[in-house]
């Protein structure tokens, strides 16, 4: 038995939706938009992902449509009020959450408890899939797991070393300076990155429902969208640290099960609390670090008034 390897793999799989959603949220926050409604986006992505997979018997298509559904959903319910009309940012986030919750149930009511039979393609890393232990640790996951892992590196590179990334950071730091001073199309890019946020959020939900769980269930996310939000704050808006945060929570999610399965002398309810308490804990730990002030994008959550 390779219990450790199995748990490691399970934690990675559990952390993957968190990582994807957090990466999307980080990009959104980079342009200054604090969307607290990822939970709703994930639900929409999850339900469309499952529905499409069930109808087409093609998990890849399900994941794709789930991601697109998340993007469209967030554009309508978040970009429209916040970017186009200039409302404040928190309340539409809650609106996104509530609508996502209700709408996903409405869509999914006839698809509950119907397992997805076709899984996503598992990628076997060439070379690595021959080494015994390493193979089980990192060698054989569905492709979104690798994508989720690579994405933060790409994001970090884009934000730090490309013209586009600089422009995005400038929008988040100071939208007025970016627009009036540097001529960046702030509203356009904010809209685009709301869509990207929705795309990755929807994809995360679809990955959770189609791959990790294998079926649609009411409120399948169980707060993971908010945990992703916590992971973003924990990362200090550095995308590579998202990986750490997401997998820590993934490990806690699995640890709760591990304790149950191995009959630890802890009440199962307490074990089940761990991921949520863990999210509070990593935020606290992050806040305790010295020199934390410089991290958040300057205009994060700030309402931009439009005129003219």
């Amino acid at each position, binding site marked *: 038995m390779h219990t450790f390897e199995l748990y490691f793999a399970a934690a990675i799989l559990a952390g993957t939706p968190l990582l994807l959603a957090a990466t999307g949220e980080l990009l959104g926050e980079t342009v200054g938009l604090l969307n607290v409604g990822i939970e709703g986006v994930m639900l929409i992505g999850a339900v469309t992902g499952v529905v499409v997979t069930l109808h087409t018997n093609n998990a890849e298509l399900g994941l794709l449509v789930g991601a697109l559904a998340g993007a469209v959903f967030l554009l309508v319910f978040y970009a429209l009020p916040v970017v186009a009309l200039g409302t404040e940012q928190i309340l539409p986030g809650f609106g996104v959450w509530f*609508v996502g919750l209700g709408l996903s149930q409405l869509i999914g009511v006839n698809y509950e408890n119907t397992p997805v039979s076709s899984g996503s393609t598992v990628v076997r890393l060439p070379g690595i899939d021959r080494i015994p232990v390493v193979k089980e640790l990192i060698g054989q996951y569905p492709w979104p797991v690798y994508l989720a892992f690579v994405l933060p590196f790409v994001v970090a590179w884009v934000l730090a070393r490309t013209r586009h990334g600089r422009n995005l950071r400038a929008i988040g730091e100071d939208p007025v300076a970016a627009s009036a001073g540097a001529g960046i199309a702030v509203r356009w890019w904010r809209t685009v990155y709301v869509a990207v946020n929705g795309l990755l959020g929807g994809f995360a939900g679809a990955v959770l429902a189609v791959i990790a769980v294998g079926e649609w269930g009411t409120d399948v996310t169980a707060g993971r969208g908010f945990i992703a939000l916590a992971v973003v704050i924990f990362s200090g808006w550095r995308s590579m640290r998202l990986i750490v945060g997401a997998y820590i929570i993934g490990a806690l999610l699995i640890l709760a099960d591990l304790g149950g399965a191995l009959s630890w002398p802890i009440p199962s309810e307490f074990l089940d609390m761990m991921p949520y308490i863990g999210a509070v804990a990593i935020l606290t730990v992050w806040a305790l670090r010295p020199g934390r002030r410089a991290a958040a994008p300057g205009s994060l959550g700030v309402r931009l008034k439009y005129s003219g």
Partner: protein
Amino acid sequence: MSLSLPTVTDVHVRQSIGVRSLRSRWTWIRQEPSETRSWICRLIAVVLALVVAGAYLVITVHVPDVLGLVLRTTFTTAPGLQELVVLATPFFLTAMAAQIPLRVGLWNVGGEGQFFAGAWLATAFAFSLPHAPGGVLIIGMLLAGAVGGAIWVAIPVLVKTLLNVNEIITTLMLNFAATYWIAYWITGSWRYPSTQGGTIESRFMPAQSNLPLIHLAGGLDSGLIIAVALTIAVGLAVRYSIFGYRTLIVGSGRAVSSYAGVRVRWVIALSLLLGGALAGAGGVLQLIGNSHQLTPGLSDNTGYLGIAVAVLAGGSVLGVIVMSCLLAVIMSVGQAVQIYGVSSEDVFILIGLLLLLATIAEVVAKYRLVRKVPTGGTARVPKEPVGLAPSVSESSRAAVAGDVG
């Protein structure tokens, strides 16, 4: 965009110079909206959302005679009215639990958890003094509930005030913890001995703790009266107290707070703790007024829906009362149309729409359509120059206004 507005005299100067023809006779102006105006806009949002929901029911679900059904089932039958009361009661307090921190610019999303924590501590109190007289038990449970709710928000308060950790996430995460915490107790030592299968519930509260029914209009829960009284009392206290005034200062931003010499941390802590205490008391009211057992369904999402009520109420106590009743009607109708295949949780779409439309209404309320000054004429020029207050400098940076909090 920033614009230094001229004073009264400047308007005259401009007119004497002669304004060139303007393209249209009407224009939008921005103004800080009055209470009435904000209310009207919010109500329009509510009506719009209801129209959307009604259209959905009529078109998709084929509910015949929606309006008649609503009126009949919710307002003409005793169970309908009673359910309305039962549904509305907890909203008052969970809405206040969200509204008071909102004055400070904080989002208490943890009403659900605090609701349960209050019910939990009250249950502990009741089970430890099962033979106490009813009055002692009721008051003791309400106090215990308030303390329980406050305890549940204490960790978010600590990390918020000391480390400035985002309260949205901490309060929300503790909701999940609360449901497991309740599960631990009601599947453990407090378990109703012969519970089978589906519903997991605690033992019954001592009978003398049950709130009496007041027989008005087919059974008014006295819990409703306590809830409304508490809501009004707390609302008025916040409105007319120095503490309430300070929450307003803190809610206007750090700069004003330190300028005015307000101890921000204390106000933050007190408002969140007060919110938690109210949510906790709401849990107790539900416990002793209605369910008489601690169950996982005790809250039925009232903690979350309270946020919606608080937002729609927009800072007023009357708003909380009106919107709580409205939401209770919506929930009740949601139940009534269930026989037509509408899931009761579909009502969240409606609530979400309400929130979005209310947000947009806040923006819309700031704009007024007025007649432009006609060429060379002297028509409606307000005595006081209207529009946004001028900015400090002619810098467009003032276009970005700091958000609350």
